[in-house]
């Protein structure tokens, strides 16, 4: 066997155009290596074959090594692994308030325009907030750039992989289920000195529900069963 021996390699440096360049000369394995005897070759080949057989019989006798999922049957208990990228989802807290404030970072990070954000200004707090988070599954490449770009940890991948539909328009999702202030805005508004309780109520009242398929795509087409028509104001 010939291999590169680090101990035998020589190091030197030369200067090319004022830039020092390191040179490592690694000798090949000695050319006069003795060929292994027949018995050694036989022994080594049998040993390597037996090693392979040991590995496979290990898989056979241990059913726990089976990785196949009996999918439709174990739908309830199926657990996807940590790094699985199913569908994009907005992170929500225990009260159902989202982290996303519609800052557009993800939209700018998206390499192929699969994310479109619409913002609005809140009438009570006067802050800019999310009106509609449109995500196009049909053009998404699941590159994760949006999640890396998000400064508020407002995005995550869900486990859902059953995204097949019969109509392409159903692949355009509205991710937020309400248009309104994110959790940070609500907290700050509450903390603001002298904010009466009814003002907070008023802020929360500005929230409007958004349907998954309430986005512009169903609007451009005709009505579909199960998809409410978009209200045009």
């Amino acid at each position, binding site marked *: 066997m010939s291999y590169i021996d680090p101990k035998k390699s020589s190091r030197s440096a030369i200067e090319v155009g004022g830039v020092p360049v390191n040179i490592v000369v690694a000798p090949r394995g000695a050319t006069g290596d003795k060929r292994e005897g027949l018995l050694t070759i036989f022994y080594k080949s049998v040993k390597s074959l037996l090693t392979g057989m040991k590995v*496979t*019989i290990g898989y056979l006798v241990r059913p726990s090594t089976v990785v*196949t999922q009996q999918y439709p049957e174990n739908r309830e208990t199926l657990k996807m692994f940590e790094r699985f990228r199913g569908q994009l989802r907005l992170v929500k807290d225990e009260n159902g308030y989202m982290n996303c404030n519609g800052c557009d970072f993800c939209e700018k990070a998206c390499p192929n325009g699969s994310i479109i954000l619409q913002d609005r200004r809140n009438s009570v707090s006067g802050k800019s907030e999310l009106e509609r988070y449109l995500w196009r599954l049909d053009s998404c490449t699941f590159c994760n750039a949006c999640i890396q770009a998000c400064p508020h940890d407002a995005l995550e991948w869900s486990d859902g992989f059953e995204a097949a539909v019969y109509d392409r328009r159903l692949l355009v999702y509205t991710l937020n289920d309400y248009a309104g202030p994110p959790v940070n805005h609500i907290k700050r508004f509450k903390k603001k000195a002298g904010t009466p309780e009814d003002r907070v109520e008023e802020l929360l009242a500005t929230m409007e529900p958004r349907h998954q398929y309430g986005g512009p795509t169903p609007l451009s087409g005709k009505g579909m069963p199960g998809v409410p028509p978009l209200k045009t104001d």
Partner: protein
Amino acid sequence: MLDFLFGQLVATHATFDVVTLSDRTTQALAEDPWLAAGYALLGLAGVGGFLSLLGMALIYVERKVAAHFQCRLGPMRVGWHGMLQSVADAIKLLLKEDIIPDRADRVLFLIAPVFSIIATTLGLILIPMSPSLQVVDLNIGVIFISAVSSFGVLGILLAGWSSNNKWSLLGAMRAGAQFISYEISVTLSLLVVTLFAGSLQLSEIVQSQQDGWWIWRGHIVGLVAFFVFLIASTAELNRPPFDLPEAESELTGGFHTEYSGLRFSFFFLAEFINMFIASALAATLFLGGWMPFHIGGLHTFNGLMDLIPPGLWFAGKTTFIIFLIMWVRWTFPRLRVDQLMRLEWKFLLPVGFINLFAAATLVITKLYFFPW
């Protein structure tokens, strides 16, 4: 010492009366022709049914074993744990469109798979499954089996030639070269056992092992012959790691590229039944066939072993060797053509010849175990 432990040390010759189906037919012919016809019909139906049922069972087992070797589950949907998958596949194959290529040699194309399946059937009738379960017991059984197994490769060659497809022809040529090469090694290791047993008749070879199986009575020689037989017959079966005739990655299916439906299933079935025949033959020649595990002279021990019926012994041994062949298939990568030829002509052939000489010496000097 052994005498003291296990009772009297006598040469046991517990007799097993071998009665084959053809014997029964001949006997019945004189008295009752209808009974003779019944026996003959039973033999035909038995072989045919055994052929197809065993084929389906082996395909199922192969798929399951392969799956678990590869961390998969295999067929799970049709029936309990996919038990009926093979039945479904068989029905599908029978209903498939039968395509004959436009420029194929029509007659040869049609009879090639029949050649294959006939060779397999002829091999199957000779296998002694138990003293009373054997269709024909020829006195040249070993020669007959190696002769008809060569007949099977004729079907493969014809299939490759008549398909008029370069991939098929390449696969068939590979099959021919491979078969001719490895047939020598198979025959050499068959000869070792023939020397030991002093007979070519399969039932007599089994009877000759009632003091111990040849694989350990012939100690090193028997073991070497067994492994040479196993390797060479795996190559003859065209199974991985020697599946060059059909090498999917290079030849898109090899000799059966152009075959579909029933004709394809003939090749497929023949391949799997050939695996059974090779395993059964290895069990018969080296592991004693239906003969229970005996140690020469230990009367009590042998008597205890006789309690297990011979058919079970045969089934167990054959299953073990089939499993071994499957294990090898799903572990090793495929050989290259030159490696295949090198393995045979430079390794197996010299080893086989030396082993044959050693066996001859052993038989003359009676140096094997229990030479009485």
